[in-house]
């Protein structure tokens, strides 16, 4: 394993503080499995980056590292000006700036849609309850669920649950939104209702990293597509370029699989 180069890279780069997410030579292993290999990537404010690649390529791990759900082994990862793994970094606080949407929604089953959305604002942000509920209702209305405010997750369809989950993240007013295959667990007819919400979020200028194979979404809102395979970033490019003229054999093979099925 390469030794961590933390010490010499701790200095913040004055010219780069514009960058919201900055990977520098990041490595990670799960046991013997090298899931992230020398990953280097910058995400700028208001940028939408789509991450795609075959299963097991490390794309979920990549975005899970950004809010500390996974820890990196070596290299540097700076998010919103704070270095992950640095004892001085207040992780709970940093996480409030990062929304995360899971493949399996992970709504709290014992709480209503509104309670799911307002839990963190009330207890973490210390927003007064009435104010948080007002904001929560507005957000649920925005994702098209004004009539489901008092429904429990078990009473909602998958697409509705995922929209509540997006509202839950947005209610913290994050600077960054991360999406981990948000439509993969959905029935086909529910995918577009979730993607429409994500497009609306992107169009409001949110900085987003989205792990997805929804190429229509990528074409519509992404500035860049990152293609990963076996833990490495193989190719990065604007969506039109990546889809019409992939540069590597591996991305060509991948695209032919997902586009012809």
């Amino acid at each position: 394993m390469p030794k961590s180069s933390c010490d010499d890279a701790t200095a913040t780069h004055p010219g780069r503080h514009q960058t919201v997410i900055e990977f520098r030579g990041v490595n990670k292993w799960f046991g013997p499995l090298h899931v992230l290999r020398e990953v280097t990537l910058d995400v700028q404010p208001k940028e939408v980056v789509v991450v795609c690649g075959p299963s097991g390529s490390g794309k979920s791990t990549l975005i899970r590292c950004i809010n500390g759900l996974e820890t990196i082994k070596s290299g540097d990862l700076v998010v919103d000006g704070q270095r992950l793994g640095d004892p001085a970094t207040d992780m709970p606080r940093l996480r409030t700036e990062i929304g995360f949407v899971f493949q399996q929604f992970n709504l709290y089953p014992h709480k209503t849609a509104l309670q799911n959305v307002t839990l963190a604002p009330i207890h973490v942000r210390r927003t007064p309850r009435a104010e948080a509920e007002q904001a929560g209702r507005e957000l649920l209305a925005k994702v098209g669920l004004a009539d489901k405010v008092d429904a429990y997750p078990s009473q909602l369809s998958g697409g509705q649950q995922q929209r509540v989950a997006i509202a839950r993240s947005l209610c913290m007013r994050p600077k960054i939104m991360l999406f981990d295959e948000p439509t993969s667990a959905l029935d086909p007819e529910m995918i577009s209702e979730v993607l429409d919400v994500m497009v609306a979020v992107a169009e409001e200028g949110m900085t987003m990293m989205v792990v997805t194979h929804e190429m229509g979404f990528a074409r519509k809102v992404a500035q860049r597509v990152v293609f990963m395979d076996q833990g490495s970033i193989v190719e990065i490019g604007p969506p039109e370029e990546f889809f019409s003229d992939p540069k590597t054999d591996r991305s060509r093979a991948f695209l032919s699989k997902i586009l012809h099925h």
Partner: protein
Amino acid sequence: MMIWQQLQSLVGSYPLALRGLGTTVAVSLIGLLAGSLVGFAMGMLRAGGNRPVRLVIGAWVDLIRGTPFLVQIFLIFFILPEAGIELEAFTAGVIALSNLAACFICEIVAGGIGAVPKGQVEAALASGLSRWQRMRHVVLPQAMRIILPPLVGQYVLLIKDSSVVSAIGLTDLTRVGWLVVQRVPNGLLVFGIIGLGYFIVCYPLLAIARRIERRMGAAHAEVQL
């Protein structure tokens, strides 16, 4: 008829029986309350604390669950005084039962917490909730559905285990039975009534357990702590 005389003689013992019932209820109630508080704390640490804490709690729980309650009571009541700690029988009994309760409850609580899907903790983590907030608002309410039925069952077992405190001279229901049977030589009758006494204490809990289980099957509502 002899049984008639025996019954009359038993009726005369009712103040003693009430005292025994009172002791059994007092020891059980204090033991279960203290045991629940300590047991929940231990269970949360065992499920999520750091490694040394988890190991120490695990070892203690195994030790207590793997030794007879009678031996534990004897150790507390007869051996601790040699180390300079003199305890009244009632205090010794309550401490022993609380400890036993805490260890069984710890395992039930830790198991319930462990059964909450990992995605729930990740969602709470991703929202910036602190460790205690994750436990309080996300993990425990869901774990309670898993914890409550075996917990109430464990309460019933512990109330019955409290009969062991009679061995250090506490006049609980069981000891009342031993005292009365010396005067009224009809063991079946005397201990039948003693058994009924325990049943009266335990039955409400069994009924509650059944109601909880039925409610859990039906509702998605939060279980109030």
